[in-house]
């Protein structure tokens, strides 16, 4: 497939370029971009690839971030334990959210996950003893074992995040393209009833998609927590979900790597817009979502795939599953 080399070049360049420039500010931006890339791809696995629309990924992301921050702050856990716990808690809650999804489709699933994220935000805001309330959790430390400060720390943190994000992305690409689960996911997206009648275990594949997607979203949250070193309730807000969906739609649904690319580009655009004014980046996100949903459903990833059979892929992610939601 012709997109492989392109993908590899973009991926390698993304990882290596910041190391060449080696300025703390550049490394900081690049690190954050990769965290968003992991989150956007995790959303794509569930919503773009499997067609189960989640409006609650901010919630899974926040669960990971808060679990990591709270266990490190209150129990003194190292970042390695915090990362594992954060991903595990998010995966468990995601699996829990997957159960209603066994019965619900389209609109209903989107709305229930939106409510779940709001519930998580409400708990973050009000469970003062553990979450620190509106001010959030801080002073809980960073990645264990990295150099204390300066360029060396920025470099090490970047490499660590890059490796974890690459492993997460690789895992998702592997599951989607090299295992039977990938075919199961696509079958659910295209026509769930048909898939079921063909003997595909849609229940198991749906739960798998929920578990992997929310677990990796949680992992991205733990990276965010240890990198930014502050977790506050705004992380769980609908604006975060909107940003993630914007990144995924921008990059191209149902490809896993498209949303990662979209996340990096949109994050760069957003940071650029900061020079004009902080409020403009979410305006841009809203515009990107609207323009791409209406005119470019395949996103940037689709621009090179015109002749392929993927013409309807971007839409299929949402129309296939959503059609029966009404």
């Amino acid at each position: 497939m012709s997109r492989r080399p392109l993908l590899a070049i973009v991926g390698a360049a993304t990882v290596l370029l910041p190391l060449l420039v080696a300025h703390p500010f550049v490394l900081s931006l690049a690190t954050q971009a990769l965290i968003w890339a992991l989150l956007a791809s995790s959303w794509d696995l569930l919503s773009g690839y499997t067609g189960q629309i989640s409006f609650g990924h901010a919630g899974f992301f926040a669960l990971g971030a808060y679990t990591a921050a709270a266990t490190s702050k209150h129990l003194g856990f190292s970042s390695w334990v915090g990362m594992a716990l954060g991903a595990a808690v998010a995966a468990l809650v995601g699996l829990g959210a997957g159960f209603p999804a066994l019965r619900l489709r389209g609109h209903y699933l989107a709305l229930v996950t939106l409510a779940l994220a709001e519930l998580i935000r409400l708990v973050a805001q009000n469970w003062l003893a553990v979450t620190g309330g509106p001010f959030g959790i801080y002073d809980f430390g960073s990645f264990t074992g990295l150099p204390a400060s300066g360029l060396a720390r920025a470099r090490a943190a970047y490499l660590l995040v890059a490796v974890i994000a690459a492993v997460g992305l690789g895992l998702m690409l592997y599951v989607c393209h090299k295992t039977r689960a990938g075919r199961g996911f696509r079958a659910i997206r295209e026509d769930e009833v048909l898939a079921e009648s063909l003997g595909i275990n849609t229940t198991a594949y749906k739960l798998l998609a929920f578990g992997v997607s929310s677990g990796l979203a949680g992992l991205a949250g733990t990276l965010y927590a240890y990198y930014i070193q502050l977790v506050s309730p705004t992380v769980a807000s609908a604006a975060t979900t909107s940003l993630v969906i914007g990144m995924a739609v921008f990059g191209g649904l149902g490809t896993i790597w498209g949303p990662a690319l979209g996340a990096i580009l949109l994050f760069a655009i957003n940071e650029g817009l900061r020079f004009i004014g902080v409020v403009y980046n979410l305006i841009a996100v809203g515009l990107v979502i609207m323009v791409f949903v209406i005119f470019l459903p395949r996103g940037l990833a689709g621009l090179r795939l015109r002749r392929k059979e993927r013409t309807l892929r971007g839409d299929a992610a949402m129309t296939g599953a959503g059609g029966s939601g009404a």
Partner: protein
Amino acid sequence: MESLLEFLIQGVVLGGLYALFAVGLTLIFGVLNVINVAHGEFFAVGGYVLFAAVVLLHLPAALGVVASGLGAFLLGLAVYPLLIAPLNRRLGRRPAGSLYLVLTLGLSTFMQSSLLAIGGGDYRQVPPLVRGILEIGPTGVSYQRVLVLVAQAMGINLARIFSLTLALGVGLAGVGGALMAPLFNVYPAVGFPLTIKAFAITILGGMGNLAGALLASLIIGVAESMVVIVVPSQWQNGVAFLVMIAVLLLRPQGLLGRSDAR
């Protein structure tokens, strides 16, 4: 006992406010099959227009309310030709499914942050449009709230009659935002929690079911009002989310919905 009655009455009034918001959403869903995630942002627009008219320009309150409704209505007029119709054209006969949801989520983010860019993040206070309190037994309801109920009830009939449902539905939300501006404050994200509550209400009542939406609004309003007896008030907002998740797990078609609704 008296305080219980007081909570009940306040709950019914709160439910009334929710109903009028949820009904606009239900009407739009019923006619266009669009779940408008940006509904609350039109509510916020109404609040801002009222703030600009009454506080900044010192116009009479009635004029401010009309301007709010008109402002949201005109914005709403643009939504169909600019967003929904082009998407429908591209899709042809394929169903839009959840694309409308994602599209209006984008609109919500766009409008919310545009309001932030134009009006800033400050909480704007608006004085009551009418003063005084209507005594009901041991408790009282401010005429401001009564006004909201009456005006919106009239608005529902209007929106049902005309075919410009989307614009009228969000226009209604705009008037609601204006009338409720003195009760809440006005800030960019003021409408979004209401949207989610309205989702909870429409799901509890049965998607697209007007009578169900009214009944569910009262239930949520009373439940929110009563729950503060047992838990601290900052958890009050969780009621709607929990109800929504519970309903979807136990009875996805809602109270009055048909069983094939999912």
